[in-house]
Each structure stands twice: as C-alpha cells, then as structure tokens.
C-alpha cells in the first residue's frame, strides 16, 4: 500500500467528509488521491493538524471530519491525542499514516515507538490498525467517533503533488466546501 492508496481508501469510506491534512506526505497524498480536492492542506504548522481538525469538527458537528496525519506530525502533536480524548468530538476520525520515517526531510527514522492505536486506546478512544487498503476503508467506515485509525503502509513512494500549497487558495476553497 502506498500513502496515496491509503488516503484513497479514506476518501471512499467518507466521500462527503471535510478533510484536514498535515504537512508533507499527508498533504501530497490527499492532493493526489482527491484530484486536488478542496481540503484543508497544511503547508507548515507541524504538529497542529489534529488540533485544526478538532476546530473544524467543533464548528461543523453535522459533518464528518477526517484528519490525515503523518507519523512524525502525530508524535510532535501528541498532546492532541489527549485533547481528542478530552473533547470527544463524535464526528472526527484521526487517520495516522505510518511508515516510521520523516519523509519530507529526507527519510530519517522516526526514532520513537509508532504506537498510535495503543496510546489512543489507553486514552479511551476507539482505535484500530489497518495494513491494507480494504481494511483501511472498512475500519474508517466502522470506527465510531472520536476514533483513531493507524494505517501502516509499506510502499514508501512520494505521492507526487507539491506539499507547498497556495495557502490563500486552500483557505478560500475549504471555506466554500465547509459552508452550510
């Protein structure tokens, strides 16, 4: 499974959702899998994407929200797993794309345990691990919010589209997509 295939599975599971992607691989994969759809792509702010998704989920409780997160992103913003367990937004799914590396900085190893589902369960969140596209799609659909899906992919292929997004354009398109 490539990162783009992992994100494609999330899009099939939640075609009408509002997606937030962390910087780097997650943004490039979401741009690739969605044909550059009107999602909230992070050009920077590493570690903040899950918090951003919680803000979106709070404003739009009627919409499904999916946070597509890198593994390095998720350890940098690990406190947000605690906040997710505290706020418990019923409409939010956090999907962590795990390959054990900091891809955009040159592929350095993560250096810490990639135990996202285990930590989430300890915090009282619904959490699963998927290692195939079929499992990722099924579990993304089944997990009750707030939930965490750890997607372990083995083909470390750069998705393609640039992660350096036009932030004003991203915001304007997302605002329109998120409007009631």
């Amino acid at each position, binding site marked *: 499974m490539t990162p783009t295939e992992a994100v494609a599975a999330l899009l099939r599971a939640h075609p009408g959702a*509002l997606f*937030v992607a962390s910087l780097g691989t997650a943004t490039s994969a979401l741009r690739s899998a969605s044909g550059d759809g009107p999602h*909230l792509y*992070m*050009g*920077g*702010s*590493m*570690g*903040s*994407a*899950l*918090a*951003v*998704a*919680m*803000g*979106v*989920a*709070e*404003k*739009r409780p009627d919409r499904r929200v999916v946070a597509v997160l890198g593994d390095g992103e998720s350890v940098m*913003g690990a*406190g*947000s797993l*605690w*906040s997710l367990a*505290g*706020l418990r937004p019923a409409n939010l799914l956090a999907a962590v794309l795990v390959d054990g590396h900091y891809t955009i900085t040159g592929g350095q190893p993560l250096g810490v345990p990639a135990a996202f589902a285990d930590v989430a369960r300890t915090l009282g969140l619904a959490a699963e691990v998927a290692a195939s596209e079929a499992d990722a799609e099924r579990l993304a659909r089944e997990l009750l919010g707030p939930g965490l899906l750890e997607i372990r992919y083995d083909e470390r292929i750069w998705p393609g589209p640039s992660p350096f997004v036009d*932030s*004003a354009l*991203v*915001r304007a398109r*997302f*605002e329109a997509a*998120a*409007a*009631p």
Partner: protein
Amino acid sequence: MTGAGTWQAELARALAEGGVEAAAWVPDKRLAPIAEALAAASVPVRTLTREEECVGWAAGFRAAGGTPLVLMQCSGLGNSLNAIGSLVVPYGLGFPLVLSMRGALGERNPAQMALGRTAVPMLELLGIQAFRLRRPADAAMLARGALAVADGARQLAPIVLEPDLDMAR
C-alpha cells in the same frame, strides 16, 4: 473580581455579543475570570494541552466558518509561534487572542521575564499588531475592535492584558 461589571466580565460580554462562538485555553489564573464569564454567556471554553494547539483549533474553527477565541498567557505565545507564522498568518485565519502578561511590571518570578519582555515584539516581527488593554473602562471597546480586525482584516488580533489593569483598581 468575577462579578458583573468587572473588566473581565465586560470583556467576555463584548466578545460573546460580538459573535464569539467558542473559546480554547490552557488554564491561567489571570484568565480564569474571563473564561468563567464566557462560560456564563454560553460560550463553551475548551481546555487543550498546549497553546499551540489552541491556535490550531481556532484556525480550524475559523476555516470552517466560525468565530473562535483563544486565551493564553504570554509564555504560551512562545509555544505558539510556528502555528501563528505558518498557519494563521499565511492562511488569513485570524481570531481574537486574549493575552495575559507575566514578566511585566510587578513580576517576582525570574523565569517569566524573558517572554514577558518579548511577547509583543515577537508578534510585531510576525507582522501582527497587538492591542493593549490598560484601563478597565476600555475592555468592551477593545473586544469589539479586535473582533473587527480578526473578522474583517483576517488578522490575529491580540488583546494584551497589561498589569495596569489590576493596579488601576
């Protein structure tokens, strides 16, 4: 201190009446009366783990069409700089930010001084204007003005709670 008519209550009331729908903070003693007044005005106040998270949460709430508020101590501004510089500023996702000052006139803790001295200059280096609240009577006016800057000009709009506020009592 928390009762009606205090500057904290006036600030919270003006923010709520101006359209603030929800707030996030990391607890702080000086901000607590404002948080309590917001909650009393039916504005939910979310407790997150780190100020940078509050900035991310508010940016997302804003991007989804809402009017959020963040309350933080100036030391938390140091924790938030990258989220402000790489998310709030370039994406134009402004919101009012109530900033309580430590490390200012009257401070006894040496650990607070550096961030107190540099909080407003750091904001200015990021291109953000800080609006200083010094007189209790100005609380509602600053709240309305900060909301206009956040909503209309799409900028982060810090309301800096200067020590003069409490000394003026």
